[in-house]
């Protein structure tokens, strides 16, 4: 503990906190990959349940750790200039924690006996899985590198992705399939939409001022 005082580069605390945010995102990706594979990849739900819970607990623990470190940062520095960055961080860790929760919800589908690995639309479902997983990974990279340009370019295309999930949900509502076929797909699309929306909130932290965080494009319909 005492050694911490003498470690080099003692002036990078917010950068370290941002490193934790990237770790949280990568943990969320891990949770999501395990969960979604239990629904569309043929993995047995019970086999990954323990790992998913462990990973989600890790994300929740990291969220609390970031909060504590922010309190310490504000207590020690008391610098007003850091305030927007601190507020933004508290906002996005909540978004990341929600991503972990939705990933767990995806696994709940598999735990409830849903297995779409042999469904007719499996190619489409796998495409959604891969897109979301890559999006989490790309968001982590963008945050790590503070790549505002990539964040802006990625955000431009994501509203269309949200619209796509809305259409997916509407299609299931109007479908004549059995509830056992329609409901899991509607829920999966809903969860993927929420994960994407939370990732967009995280990305907006690089390109928007604090007061407009989460509201990338006000003309678009809401993302709930």
């Amino acid at each position, binding site marked *: *503990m005492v050694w*911490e*005082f003498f470690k080099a580069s003692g002036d990078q605390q*917010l950068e370290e906190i941002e490193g934790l945010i990237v770790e949280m995102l990568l943990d969320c990706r891990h949770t999501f990959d395990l969960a979604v594979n239990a629904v569309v990849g043929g993995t047995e739900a019970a086999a990954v349940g323990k790992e998913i819970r462990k990973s989600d607990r890790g994300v929740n623990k990291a969220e609390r750790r970031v909060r504590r*470190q922010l309190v*310490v940062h504000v207590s020690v520095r008391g610098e007003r200039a850091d305030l927007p960055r601190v507020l933004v961080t508290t906002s996005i860790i909540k978004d990341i924690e929600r991503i972990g929760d939705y990933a767990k919800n995806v696994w709940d589908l598999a735990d409830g006996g849903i297995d779409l690995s042999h469904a007719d639309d499996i190619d489409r479902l796998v495409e959604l899985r891969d897109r979301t997983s890559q999006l989490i990974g790309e968001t982590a990279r963008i945050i790590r590198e503070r790549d505002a340009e990539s964040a802006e370019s990625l955000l431009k295309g994501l509203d269309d992705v949200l619209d796509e999930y809305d259409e997916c949900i509407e299609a299931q509502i109007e479908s004549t399939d059995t509830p056992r076929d329609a409901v899991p797909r509607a829920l999966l699309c809903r969860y993927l939409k929420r994960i994407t929306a939370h990732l967009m909130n995280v990305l907006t932290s690089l390109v928007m001022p604090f007061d407009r965080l989460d509201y990338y494009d006000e003309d678009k319909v809401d993302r709930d």
Partner: protein
Amino acid sequence: MSTEPGRDRVPPWVRVLLVLILLYLFLAGVKALESGIREFGEDLTDSLFERVSNPLAGLFVGILATVLVQSSSVTTSTIVGLVGGGVLPIEVAVPMVMGANIGTTVTNTLASLGFLRRTDEFRRAFAGATMHDFFNICNVVVMLPFELLTRGLTKIAQRMADLLGGVLSFGHGESGGLVQTAVKAPVRLFESLLDRLGCGDSVTGALLLVFGLGLIFLALAYITRNMKLVMAGRIERSLNAVLAKGGGAAAIVIGMIVTAAVQSSSITTSVLVPMIAAGVLTLRNAYPVTLGANVGTTITALLASLAIENPAGLVIALVHLLFNLSGLLVWYVIPGLRGIPLALAERLAFVAEKRKSFVVVYVVGVFVIIPLVGVLVFQ
């Protein structure tokens, strides 16, 4: 995260250099204080000694002086200067140093008042701040009678000073040592300037006192300010470690190092208050950091003693260290006693939460009225 934080634009090495210059000015201030007192001669010594010869008067003077300057480092360095100048006997200086320990706790108690409007946070913050008060009060209650009866702290400090005298020959050698030679220069310059202006001994003494006190106050204030900027990242990192791993002996050492680095226990303890208020740091985990801060702050008086020719200056600085170390042993190492300052602080915070007016009564009473009445009664 698009907002870039306002970082300190001055390179750390420039700040460290600045701190070294300020440290030199601080020592020159202590030297000026010592020289100023000598200019006055025995009359001043006798009249001052008569006023504060009662140990309780000394204790209350220590509290009042520290509350006034909001820094025990300034008070204890001044005491070292006064002892070195022969104006203050060690037996009177010891209770003053103990009083300075109590007086310095007013700063973080005042910091806790910022949470007054939010009940739960205020209760935690006030308990976090006043545990420092209670620790120091409890320590004085035990150590002052012990010292008056046995002179135990002074005797040990004298032994240590004898041993250290050789080791610290750069400060206390026969020829005055390196440090003393170096810090004498600006004082002599100031004295010769006053001579040329035709100032008598008393005027020279008074101006040297003002010059010395001003240098001590300003140099310490700027040392603390600069060191806080240089050390902020390290302080943050070590406090994060305290949060992650809890209190204990390592937390004591962190409290010591952080405080020695910034030369102010008030900085360390005041930083803890918002963390305790937010609930991320428990009172029990903050307690060892506070006790460490109490020990760490003694470095200032030890540094000040380097500028003093009279070994008594080192003795009183060591008494300050021993007083805080013995407090640590009594009120932290003994499990049955460890909880007492914490329980008292929690109880006081509970009362303060219910009756906010009591906070004013407590702060004004403990830090102003009682010491003031004490000085008047016991002088």
